[in-house]
């Protein structure tokens, strides 16, 4: 059975997998039993062996039997489904809270101390509560190894929680179709022991565990990775949903603003405006409405670090 071999890494796994095995067990019993009965009837009562059919119109006893037994079985299956799901609905009060920001097409994780990452760092054996926010359309946060999934609905305050029970790196997918780059909207969960987590969490010099050097351009690149810019913009000249960043800074751009086309120079002011009010000027050839404002999510320092990084992309 595959389910037993797939990664089991949270407190919900046992409840979900138990429901899975009980339901699949009953299903396979009926599927195989009924199929064999059918095949046996075809063999035993085919016209060569049984030229004259015996007319039987029905049996009330049998109808009652095969109504009552499946009813009991489905109630059992319902119970295990309910029992495995019930604990997902209430997060413990002492859970470690992380804000999730989903947008087309990236998840960003924000910690209480202001740290933002695109990889979800969680401490082992401690309840973690994710507060789910969407900036645009409906997304869905799915961690198969934890058996959890919850839609991220704009305008709704929702959460999900779990206790990571296994050290390691696991996939985190978006499972609600959200447009062009939906299938690239996946990130990673990294579950580490508490002491290692604390070290990462309190370390203010390197904001991402792997980044040791923090020059202005590196900082800009890191910020852009964490808030999901590269889901839509490349740095190598290729065109995605949005224009590339390569050779952008200081060059002329043709934009449409309020119905008229004009040419502007991509300077500091232009870039800042494009981040905070992206739909006021749309680069010619691209669609309006795809990018949401980052107002209130980036400090002026962070924006200037992004600009430093863009300057380096010649």
């Amino acid at each position, binding site marked *: 059975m595959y389910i037993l071999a797939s990664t089991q890494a949270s407190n919900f796994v046992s409840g979900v997998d138990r429901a899975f095995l009980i339901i699949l067990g009953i299903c396979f019993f009926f599927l195989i039993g009924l199929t064999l009965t059918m095949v046996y009837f075809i063999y035993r009562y085919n016209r060569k062996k049984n030229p004259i059919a015996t007319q039987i119109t029905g049996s009330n006893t049998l*109808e009652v039997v095969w109504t009552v037994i499946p009813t009991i079985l489905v109630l059992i299956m319902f119970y295990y489904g309910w029992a495995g799901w019930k604990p997902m609905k209430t997060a413990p009060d002492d859970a470690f809270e992380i804000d999730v920001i989903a947008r087309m097409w990236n998840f960003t994780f924000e910690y209480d101390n202001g740290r933002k990452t695109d990889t979800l760092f969680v401490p082992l054996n401690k309840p973690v509560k994710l507060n789910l926010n969407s900036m645009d359309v409906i997304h*869905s946060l799915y961690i198969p190894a934890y058996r959890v999934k919850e839609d991220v*609905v704009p305008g*709704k305050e929702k959460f999900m929680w779990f206790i990571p029970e296994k050290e390691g790196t696991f996939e985190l997918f978006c499972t*609600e179709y959200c447009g062009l780059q*939906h299938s690239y909207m996946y990130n990673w969960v990294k579950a580490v022991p508490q002491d290692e987590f604390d070290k990462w969490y309190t370390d203010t010099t390197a904001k991402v565990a792997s980044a040791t050097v923090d020059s202005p351009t590196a900082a800009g690149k890191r910020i852009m990775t964490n808030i999901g810019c590269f889901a839509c913009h490349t740095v190598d000249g290729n065109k995605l949903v949005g224009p590339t960043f390569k050779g952008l800074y200081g060059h002329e751009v043709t934009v449409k603003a309020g119905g008229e086309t004009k040419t502007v120079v991509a300077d500091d002011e232009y870039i800042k405006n494009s981040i905070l009010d992206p739909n006021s000027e749309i680069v010619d050839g691209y669609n309006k409405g795809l990018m949401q404002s980052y107002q209130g999510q980036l400090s002026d320092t962070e924006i200037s670090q992004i600009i430093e990084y863009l300057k380096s992309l010649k």
Partner: protein
Amino acid sequence: MQASSQIPHDVSYLDYKGKYKGLLAWILSTDHKRIALLYMFSIMTMFFVGVCLGLAMKLELIAPGKTIMGAQDYNAVFTVHGVIMIFMIVIPGLPAVFGNFLLPLMIGAKDVAFPKLNLFSWYLYIAGAILVISSVLFGDGSPDTGWTFYAPYSFRTGTNMLPAIFGAFVLGFSSILTGLNFIVTIHRLRAPGMTWTKMPLFPWTLYGTAWIQLLATPVVGITLVLVSLERIFGIGVFDPALGGDPILYQHLFWIYSHPAVYIMILPAMGAISEVIPTFSQKHVFGYKAIVASTLAIAFVGYFVWGHHMFTSGMSGTAQYTFSILTFLVAIPSAIKVFNWISTMYKGSIALETPFFWAMSFIFVFMIGGLSGLVLGALATDVYVHDTAFVVAHFHFIVFGGVGFSFFAAIHYWFPKMFGRMYDKTWANVGWIVFFIGFLALYTPMFYLGMQGMPRRYYDYLEQFHSANILSTLGSWVMTFGLAIIVINLFRSAKSGAIAPENPWNGKTLEWTVPSPPPVENFDDIPVYGEKDGPYEY
């Protein structure tokens, strides 16, 4: 009915020369049998398009990364595949083709209650189809929202949504009017002596279906109107940016679209309930239980829509209520399967093509139904919701259920419809190739879903690769089988052996008229006596 005296009794509906000639004799005919064939050919045309899109999708997924198209095209392809297959093929499929052809024949009537309305329904179908196709061919790119048109993405995308939405709206009216027509026909036009408990099972399922079409379809109509108004005028019903509620959209959409699954599957069950007694030469087992389960499905089916939304943020109470109702709706389907298999017990089974299709129907329907239990249970649904598991489940039900039943029905009633027999060897070869391809195509998706592969993914991680290869290979085998089946039927309709009136020794009324039937079906309206019944062998 004044004209009836001028219509000769010995001319079949295929050969009849009326006021119009050529194509006009078909597209202006109010004969339920000709309208049935109009539907059949339009549905087959759309099915061909849908299959090509499906093949393109499977080919794209044979390897990670870009294979034959970009992500935008892939998203458009699965959207249009879904819209075409659901709204233009599976929903009208059995009722519009076999319901139209057989309902009057099986209950001993000369036509449906409102023949002109019946033809008008077909025109609405064509108009809706043209609108949907135009959204693909013209405007700012094909719709890319998935067939569910979920808000608020469906407001945000720049693609050509309005014609597709309006097309689905028009198709809905076609469905409503067909349902209305069938309800009145069944109430008013049954042959004298055919009491409700003597009506064959296929008309019974059409009756259950017709009520769902009549009562549930307007909900999606209203929803689509609201979506259009929101897109055009920006009123905030669903878009949270305007103060609306996207979850409300999901509720309204599934209040129709879940019962719609029963619009699809009930007539499919009805056709199987006709095929099994005929080829077992035996009275159907548990007639009343099958009728009761049909009505139970039609009724309980209204109250389970929330199981599509277990992760969307309903209250816990709503979640487990919908879960338990979902489990209850499984029971009448199980009762049907038990009764079908019991019908074979001590029968005299003829191993003909329709019977093979019926057997494989029961097999794939069981897989589809049982996997539905996984999705009805809360804990397991949270795990596999919106993954490939769901895609496998509904293709087993909707394509396995409805598709296999459609092929059982076409091979069963083909002699009646076209007056000719088909080549049985090729029909059986087509069946087995199709069946193997079908299993290879959809079974790996169960596995992929349990591995955690989300649905509607243009690209995927390497661990999902091998199962996807098998699935793509399966799509080729299945299409090959489909080609054999279709070519065989086309050739046989032209040049097959002349079919007798009752080639399978069926006992329902359609087998008492010539093959193909005359224009007005019955010279004299048949009368059911005390001892008569649809399954009295």
